[in-house]
């Protein structure tokens, strides 16, 4: 036995209590690591966007559509090389839980602007452009649902129905695409805009937003101002931003995930500090005569302080490691389940290590008062208790 052995033996003196405390700390850090991954996923989408593209959306809200008639005016702005558009379709495939983004797009202009997407098979783009009921999807989506080329995919419209009131939309899969050889973190289902626009019962000749490619990324701000100036006094004013900023705005509409996760974790950790702190204080009260015996045998006040502090830190770090380890284990499974809701959900080593570090810090906060009390114990008084 050594001092660590003594610390360990004391930590598990009441197994049920210690295990319950470990469980609560572990759950807190499981939440911490997973929520951190969620917050990172929300910001992650912003980082992959190119700076040579600008997104033109409604000035008022991302859910406001813009008239198709703006297309030529935007194309006329100096520095705008190409333009395409996309719209939010909504809709469910089989079950609302099978969430993924569905956009009506102009096939040729879309893939001209999003050149990082590579389509397969070779004639996919041609078929997509020619066949109005065709769709192309991210390769990850096709793998997820086991779709193959030629499959007919039914989507139930939740926003848009056809002019005859029918909500069933059927599409034929003609190709898949990947992003620079990898499945996208935000897998898309792209349908033909003309088919969509002609079929819908309302909201014709509108788009969700425009995406333009500009000739000089250095002039992005200037070009954005020029585009917005075109529509400033119209019924449909715009707000033009880089894709990066646009993605951030989208995430902000859902809520400030960083702030929300921080608030949740602050509440969880506050509770953990109170509960575990109370447990540590109780454990200390039960052991006052034993601590006095240790001092009697020659253990210095500082050694006793370190033993109690070490116990609190070890308890929290063990719980933190269990929680973070569990998060790392279940993270990949969760990533599959939440795919499509937001960007790439990934439990990182940085998240795991920061959780263990934070658990140690919380252990210090929890342990410091009981440890100081133990350090100050007067042997003669404590032996009488």
């Amino acid at each position, binding site marked *: *036995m*050594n*001092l660590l*052995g*003594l610390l360990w*033996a*004391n930590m*598990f*003196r009441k197994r049920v209590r210690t295990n319950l405390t470990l469980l609560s700390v572990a759950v807190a850090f499981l939440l911490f690591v997973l929520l951190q991954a969620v917050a990172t996923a929300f910001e992650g989408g912003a980082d992959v966007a190119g700076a040579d593209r600008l997104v033109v959306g409604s000035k008022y809200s991302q859910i406001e559509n813009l008239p198709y008639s703006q297309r030529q005016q935007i194309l006329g702005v100096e520095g705008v090389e190409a333009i395409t558009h996309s719209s939010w379709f909504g809709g469910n495939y089989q079950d609302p839980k099978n969430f993924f983004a569905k956009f009506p797009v102009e096939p040729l202009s879309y893939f001209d602007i999003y050149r990082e997407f590579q389509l397969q098979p070779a004639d996919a783009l041609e078929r997509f452009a020619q066949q109005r009921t065709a769709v192309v999807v991210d390769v990850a989506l096709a793998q997820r649902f086991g779709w193959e080329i030629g499959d007919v995919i039914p989507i139930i419209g939740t926003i848009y129905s056809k002019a005859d009131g029918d909500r069933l939309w059927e599409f034929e899969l003609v190709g898949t695409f990947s992003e620079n050889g990898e499945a996208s973190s935000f897998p898309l289902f792209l349908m033909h805009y003309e088919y969509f626009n002609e079929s819908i019962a309302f909201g014709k000749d509108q788009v969700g937003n425009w995406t333009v490619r500009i000739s000089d990324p250095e002039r992005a701000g200037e070009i954005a101002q020029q585009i917005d100036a075109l529509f400033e006094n119209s019924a449909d004013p715009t707000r033009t931003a880089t894709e990066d900023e646009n993605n951030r705005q989208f995430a902000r509409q859902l809520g400030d995930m960083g702030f929300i996760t921080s608030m949740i974790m602050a509440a969880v950790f506050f509770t953990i500090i109170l509960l575990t702190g109370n447990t540590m204080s109780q454990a200390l009260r039960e052991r006052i*005569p*034993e601590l006095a*015996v*240790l*001092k*009697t*045998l*020659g*253990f*210095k*006040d*500082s*050694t006793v302080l370190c033993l109690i502090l070490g116990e609190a830190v070890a308890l929290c770090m063990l719980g933190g490691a269990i929680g973070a380890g569990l998060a790392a284990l279940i993270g990949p499974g969760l990533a599959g389940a939440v795919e499509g809701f937001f960007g790439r959900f990934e439990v990182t080593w940085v998240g795991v290590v920061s959780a263990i570090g934070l658990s140690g810090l919380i252990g210090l906060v929890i342990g410091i008062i009981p440890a100081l009390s133990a350090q100050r114990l007067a*042997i*003669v008084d404590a*032996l009488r208790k």
Partner: protein
Amino acid sequence: MTAAVVCKDLAKQYTKGREVVPVLTGINLSIDTGDFLALMGPSGSGKTTLLNLIGGLDVPSGGEIIVAGDSLAGMNSSALAKWRSEHVGFIFQFYNLLPVLNAQRNVELPLLLTKLSRKQRQANAATALEIVGLADRAKHKPGELSGGQQQRVAIARALVADPDLLVCDEPTGDLDRETADEILELLQVLNREHGKTVIMVTHDPRAAEFARRTLHMDKGKLVSAQEAVA
């Protein structure tokens, strides 16, 4: 014979609010190395306080105390802790073993403060348990041992660092007569055969008979046997 303990005009007082309560006054005492001293007296006479001062568990309010050649009055808490670990073994009425550790590990505790290797610590603890006749109970936790066995483990713990002095506060106070006699005989063996100086506080005149000599205390002072009886 050299003195193991010397107390000169030793005093101890406590403060309760504004009131100063004297517990020990004018204690002058010399205990030879290899002595076995019984300290007797009624409750509140100051026996345990004197024992605590001799063992370096408390500091005097006045006077001087020299134990094993070291003056304790000037030592701070850290120095006193180190001194205790090297010079004094403690035996309590209620054994005060750590319930989470088995007998072997309880005995090993004082050696954690030394530079001995793990193997050496274990060997020394085993020897101490053998001396007290509990080698076969090394892996048992205190809750699995009788009161007498627990006190033997406590004695082994007090012995294991090979201190000069054993201070015993009512070591048989929680034991039946037969077991108490066994413990007292063990203390006698440690005193006579291992040369340990033993200071024992007791209420029990029969226990005191195992000592080489007995001192009496009353109202914070050392008194003669006649005064104590009176």
